[in-house]
């Protein structure tokens, strides 16, 4: 399944300006590994760790989460807080 991935927040600038990617993936693990393999320019972004937003729900480290067909998918900086 082809997933359209966008870089959210400040990630696009960290990846050299491009903000939209396509990758074959059914879950978050396949998504991240596929992006890293297909798009070396995303290496620094992925190495620092990202959160993944799927249809507005934010996932951190949830590799096995499935991605529904046609989902809105964003990579985001990881969120923490006080």
């Amino acid at each position, binding site marked *: 399944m082809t997933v359209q991935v966008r870089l*959210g927040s*400040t990630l*696009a*600038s960290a990846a050299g300006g491009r903000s939209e990617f396509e990758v074959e993936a059914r879950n978050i693990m396949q998504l991240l590994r596929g992006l890293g393999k297909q798009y070396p320019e995303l290496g*620094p972004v992925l190495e620092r760790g990202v959160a993944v937003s799927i249809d507005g729900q934010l996932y951190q480290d949830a590799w096995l989460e499935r991605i529904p067909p046609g989902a809105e998918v964003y990579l985001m900086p990881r969120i*923490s807080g*006080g």
Partner: protein
Amino acid sequence: MAAVMKPRDPDVTYSQVGTRPKRPDGVDKVTGRARYGADVSAPGMLIGKVLRSPHAHARIRGIDTSRAEALEGVKAVVTRDDFPGLDELPDGGGEEVLVDVACNVMAREKALYEGHAVAAVAATSARIAKRALGLIEVDYEVLPHVTDVDAAMAPGAPVLHETMFTRGVEPAPSEPSNVAERSEIVQGDVAEGFAQADVIVERDFRTEAAHQGYIEPHACMASMSEDGSAEMWVCTQGHYSVRDMCAQILGLPLSRLRVTASEIGGGFGGKTTVFIEPTALALSMKSGRPVKIVMDRDEVFRASGPTSSASISMKIGATRDGRITAAEGELRYQGGAFRGSPVPFGAECCFALYDTANVHLTCYDVVVNRPKQAAYRAPGAPMASFAVESVLDEIALELDMDPIELRLRNAVKEGSKSIYGPSFGPVGMVETLEEARDHENYQAPLAARQGRGVATGFWPNYGGETSVTLNVNTDGTVLLSLGTPDIGGSRASMCLMAAEELGVPYERVRAIIADTNALSFNATTGGSRVTHSAGMATVQAARNAIDNMRGRVAEMWGIDAEAVEWEDGYARPSGSNAGDFEPMSFAEIAALSSQTGGPIAGHAEINAAGAGNSFGTHVVDVEVDDQTGAVSVLRYLVVQDAGRAIHPSYVEGQYQGGAAQGVGWALNEEYIYGEDGTLQNPGFLDYRMPVASDLPMIDTVIVEVPNPGHPYGVRGVGETPIVPPLAAVANAVARATGRRLTELPMSPPRILAALSESAEAG
């Protein structure tokens, strides 16, 4: 596994959730029985003290500890040589860069700020330990320093890290600088947006660092055994994170380090990392004795992390009918001596509230010779929102438009695209604005020198790893074991959710914070995540226990488990076809646990997702004394979406506490540095936090737009309340005086100076 739980029917009225029982930790806290970090002791315990750099920036040429070690009563001295090299550290350390954490705990080649730890002593008494610190000789080469964010970015500024080359710049710089990273959020075409604007306002803003101001200083005790295992008792928001960072910094397996979180006297984000904990453990390893370190207030200010100070330029354009057409800004945050200021969060949050097509925000993460910044409620958001919400107030004035109406015309709704990418689900931005507009405070008359300020705030919220065990006792009571230190009343909220699920009275459920050996991993309490994620885990654990009990009852009745339903604390046949059985109560089933298979427990180990976004609107009335420059807060209103308030009193407390801290940040709190780069006000006499007599009763309205990602609709509420106050107070001062202050704090001297300029201008 990742978890998103669908909500129960939002129209259902619950018997427990939404009530206001007394807090379970209240009696111990008011009687002094509660055990905080400094209350822990052990046989043979030593007292640890830390030697800190008197210089803002200095190379450490050598450290001679021989005289200190020779002092009677001194059992161990540690320096950088007693910690593994930074290049030996693994990746990781949670959300922080572990190498930076380790270097902050104990200085290596350089002392990077006044207060940076350079050595530590463990001795048989505090007096001896203190005397020993005076016997340690450190050979410093004092270096030029910089403590201001703009000065640190200027050409020729003293460079803190020779290895720091700005990320995010093309081509990559060939010279090191204090700018760790440049990043951007770009949406639409700001030039086109400004061309459509009828009014454009552009301002520069500055905010000073504010400390979290928790009452209890950092405290811990570490005890290393001869068999290589260790225990720690720590005042922290995240004892698993303490375990992981201490183990990694000192090279211990996680299974060898057990950490217990003490009761906590405030955290607000400042206790999400380690400062003294690895040092106490290193001293215990070296001495073979338990070692306790307790910071004094001076150390808390000088050496634990306040928030970033910031310098911000903001330009916003709008049409005559109040539609924002474009926004362009530059956010410059210093993160202390290490990379990692929360500037990206500032950029994400300040425009997340508005449906704005054209935005371009540029962020700079800058290092200076100050303590490593630590999280503080909604890290990074209050400063950026101060800039945006102040400019919006000016636009409202120029348009002669009500400031709430201006925000309503631009507010995000379900389906709006956020500035940081994803589309919003159901959110309560519009509802908080409407509630604020319709509140009696918004209509209260104002006299001369009084003004009313409005501002809004946002925090995205998140979930994270959480595990909970729910034990059913044979007397029908319930014990919840949680791994998320309770900094804001979470034990009561978890008990309410467990009681609601199980159908038992709240009084029969108690919660404890278990140590790191008792439960699987729990992410740190912070980011407004606990009521959402630990709540979700608690609900799952309760349902897990219910399934267990339904199975037992089914066996006793000789029917399938699916034919047994759980309702109001009773197992019942699910219908007439299931058979005619007398319902069994929770207590009856619990009493039979031994005979029906042994102890009954429920578990949940999850990575919680589905945290709902949080929006709030604040309205504040102030009066400005034009003789003294003092600002009095007359009325304060917080309206915020909680999704569903599990324990409304605690939710209101979060709203009030965030507002109070924000008022302090707006009016008085600041880190003041001398020419020599040393902090001039490391105590509560000179670092002026608001006290009860400085504030009116803070009025609250809880808006409930249920979060579809939580079984009870919960949204985290702890971060957002500190986002709007900086601008809300500034906007009120501007409307009271006719002068807009763009630099915080708006302390009396600054107010008087502004009024004086106003008078001179005629």
